[in-house]
């Protein structure tokens, strides 16, 4: 019987011991002695969040298909356990074998959001791996990062030996083969890293030097060894039949945030919303073959025993064979008690018809994401949704029996005026009025409109990467204006308004467009006790302020400073397929309030055409 890393005493004391014992359905068992490479995959947040992530499931499945690799998993221990581990000096361990992570060849960390950066440091710390890459020895695992935040890896560059930029399906096989060969030939850690840095999509931070101008902006970014590229291009899968999927996903014992089969129907998005980083990073849009998807759905439902399946993509309504796929799922699985959970679809006759088949209309709500309140503002951000679309969709839904509506907006968008802000509650009011147009005897009491706003954070590789973000006070003024306007409206009793905390947004803004200088503030914040910053109950703005103060970081430099057209950004050495010229053109069109057509309507020359696939070549044999 497998021995656990934690004693019964500890496991019975902490919340949800199932987070730490492994042994889940479909988790992979191998004898570590039979493999050449031990890889530990980490999602630096709590188990229930990490287990919901499709990317890890794909890589776990893919790596373990190799007989010479054993891939295991680890997540951030919840604070009740991390305190005990520190006190009793228990090293962080992988779930499968319960072996210390320090004994592995690789520690892979997926970096999905900025607010997990201190958790990354904690994972290294609890593992007993030196926090800075330059201080690691031949005994330590190679720490490799992947995921969306690696499109600006600089704030966390010091903590990683290497980053994998792009989609995991492409280069990992070569990386493992190279590692084996290097080990066989007795190469040193440094030599191995230099060789890896020559692979496409691989970035080894310590092999690049950054110099700064007097004003703190970047003067140069150059390799400090021969034979590695000065610009690193993302790895991308162009043959959609090669996009990985976990045929046997690991099924947690405890309820995960996403506790169902997830079917990835396409990568990328045709829409080109100017605030959206994912919409730029994953170009071109690559829909998967619908027949392959049907077979995958069947296989995953059978291998897991889940009674729910959901579709995943950035914009499911744009998937060409959506109708066929959903009808297949309903026809084949609904009778068997399988729930079809729909992603947020564009509200129209088709989606309402489907929703009425798979959901309880009275309980379910409609979701609209207009993102901005006025048409002018929506043109600035290139969000194609119009007021007519929304009112027509809501009208149809209300007639069909729905009465709950959720609306998502952003505040603090570039060029935003008071009128744009007031447009948010005004749009909600129009929707409410549309509901009350239905005769009283035909409607079901009050309607229920929830308005949620988040604060806008400019992200790298978007047309808004140049813009200053709002200050904390400006954000809160805007939220207050929405709140006050809601209260003045006729149908205020049918509305509820939620807004986010501004402090977290400011931090996210600093980290999103930060440079290497930020690393020391991250370290300081961790020393001061910051961890689980994505969790309201643990986020402590005072500690963060102190960390920036102690390390001489000027927060405003990263957030509210306007950036010149040709400033060298920390992430400029990466090539995500979309050109900087395109992004700047889009930035200018935003200022002119001009909408850019989506990829299916017309090509706007973003640069992703060079990959010669997906939507770029649709209907053009």
């Amino acid at each position, binding site marked *: *019987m497998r021995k656990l890393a934690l004693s019964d005493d500890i496991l*019975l004391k902490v919340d949800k011991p199932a987070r730490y014992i492994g042994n889940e359905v479909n988790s992979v068992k191998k004898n570590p002695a039979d493999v050449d490479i031990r890889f530990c995959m980490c999602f630096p947040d709590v188990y229930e969040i990490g287990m919901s992530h499709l990317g890890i499931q794909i890589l776990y499945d893919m790596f373990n298909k190799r007989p010479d690799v054993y891939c295991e998993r680890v997540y951030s221990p919840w604070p009740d356990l991390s305190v005990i581990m520190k006190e009793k000096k228990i090293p962080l361990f992988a779930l499968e074998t319960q072996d210390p992570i320090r004994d592995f060849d690789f520690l892979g960390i997926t970096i999905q959001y900025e607010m997990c950066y201190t958790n990354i440091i904690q994972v290294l710390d609890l593992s007993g791996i030196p926090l800075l890459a330059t201080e690691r020895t031949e005994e330590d695992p190679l720490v490799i990062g992947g995921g969306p935040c690696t499109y600006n890896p600089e704030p966390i560059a010091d903590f990683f030996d290497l980053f994998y930029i792009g989609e995991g399906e492409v280069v990992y096989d070569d990386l493992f083969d190279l590692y084996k060969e290097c080990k066989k030939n007795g190469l040193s850690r440094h030599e191995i890293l230099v060789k890896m840095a020559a692979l496409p999509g691989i970035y080894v931070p310590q092999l690049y030097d950054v110099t700064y101008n007097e004003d703190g902006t970047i003067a140069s970014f150059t390799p400090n060894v021969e034979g590695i590229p000065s610009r690193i291009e993302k790895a991308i899968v162009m043959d959609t039949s090669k996009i990985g999927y976990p045929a046997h996903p690991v099924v947690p*014992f405890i*309820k995960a945030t996403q506790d169902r089969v997830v079917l990835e129907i396409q990568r990328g998005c045709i829409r080109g919303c100017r605030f959206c980083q994912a919409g730029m990073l994953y170009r071109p849009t690559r829909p998967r073959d619908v027949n392959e998807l049907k077979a995958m759905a069947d296989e995953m439902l059978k291998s*897991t*025993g889940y009674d729910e399946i959901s579709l995943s993509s950035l914009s499911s309504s744009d998937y060409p064979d959506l109708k066929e796929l959903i009808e297949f799922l309903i026809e084949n699985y609904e009778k068997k008690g399988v729930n079809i959970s729909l992603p947020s679809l564009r509200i129209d006759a088709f989606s309402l018809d489907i929703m009425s088949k798979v959901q309880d209309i009275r309980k379910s709500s409609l979701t609209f994401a207009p993102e901005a309140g006025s048409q002018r503002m929506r043109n600035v951000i290139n969000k194609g949704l119009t007021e007519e679309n929304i009112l027509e969709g809501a009208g149809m839904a209300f007639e069909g029996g729905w009465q709950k509506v959720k609306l998502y907006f952003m505040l603090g968008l570039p060029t935003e005026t008071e009128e744009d802000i007031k447009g948010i509650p005004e749009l909600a009011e129009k929707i409410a009025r549309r509901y009350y147009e239905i005769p009283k005897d035909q409607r079901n009491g009050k309607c229920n409109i929830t308005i949620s706003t988040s604060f806008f954070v400019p992200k790298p590789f978007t047309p808004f990467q140049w813009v200053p973000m709002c200050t904390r006070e400006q954000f809160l003024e805007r939220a207050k204006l929405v709140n006050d306007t809601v209260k003045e409206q006729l149908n205020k009793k049918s509305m509820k308004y939620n807004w986010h905390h501004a402090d977290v947004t400011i931090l996210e803004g600093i980290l999103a467009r930060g440079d290497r200088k930020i690393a020391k503030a991250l370290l300081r914040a961790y020393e001061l006790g910051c961890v689980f910053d994505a969790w309201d109950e643990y986020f402590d703005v005072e500690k963060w302020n102190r960390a920036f103060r102690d390390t001489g970081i000027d927060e405003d430099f990263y957030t509210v400073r306007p950036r010149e057209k040709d400033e060298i950004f920390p992430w400029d050495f990466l090539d995500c397929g979309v050109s900087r010229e395109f992004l700047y053109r889009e930035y200018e069109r935003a200022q002119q309030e001009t909408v850019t057509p989506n990829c299916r309507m017309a090509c706007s020359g973003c640069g992703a055409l060079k990959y010669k696939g997906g939507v770029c070549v649709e209907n053009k044999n």
Partner: protein
Amino acid sequence: MKIRIKFSKHGCMKFIGHLDIMRYFQKANIRAGIDIAYSEGFNPHQVMSFAAPLGVGITSDGEYMDIRVNSTRSTADSIKALNDVMVDGMEILEYKKLPDDSKKSMSVVALADYYMYPKDEDEMFTDITVLSNKIAKFMAQPTILVTKKTKKSEKEVDLKPHIHAFNVDFYNSRQEECLNQCAYFLSVTTGSEVNIRPELVVSAFYDFCNAEFKEEAFQIHRQEVYALENDKYIPLGSMGENIEAAE
């Protein structure tokens, strides 16, 4: 058709709580291709109920779950199909058809057997004869009064009528966790009306001996669960019949 399934729970699975074990079996039934019946309504769920929820940290060879199926394979085939999709530490031991008019297992549970063994050295077990004598004296008391604490109240209970057996025995687990392990064997009243936890008895015994009782120093293991039928305690599993061929 009603089916009663008996299973064991060992190793790290003892950390998975009752509700999660239910969710685990809902998925396992699908993976094993059990033709389980669903309830009516907008959110149909599998018709499934458990005899006596097991606390976190306790291992067992005597867990019972009742399900309703539309059709079934033989007992042997069903056990194999389920065991093929089990994780380490979970094993299906019985799969039996119940008479249509049988009551829910939950409502007939009356008694359970437990082993309780020290995880490390325990002075009490140095001399088995001495220990057995102490237990005999403990059991010879006219009443064994303890205070039972619930979330809401405290009340005094006499344990004596609820202890059907209490002695020293050797425990051998199915899954090699331990062999010939000296343990307390207890047979105590179980069910929805009166439910006596074995550690309550052993704790009272340690008080009686003026010894310190540390709950976390023991591993509790449930061996079997019984119903009372015609004044006789019979294992829940014996209330059903093996299925010879698919029906």
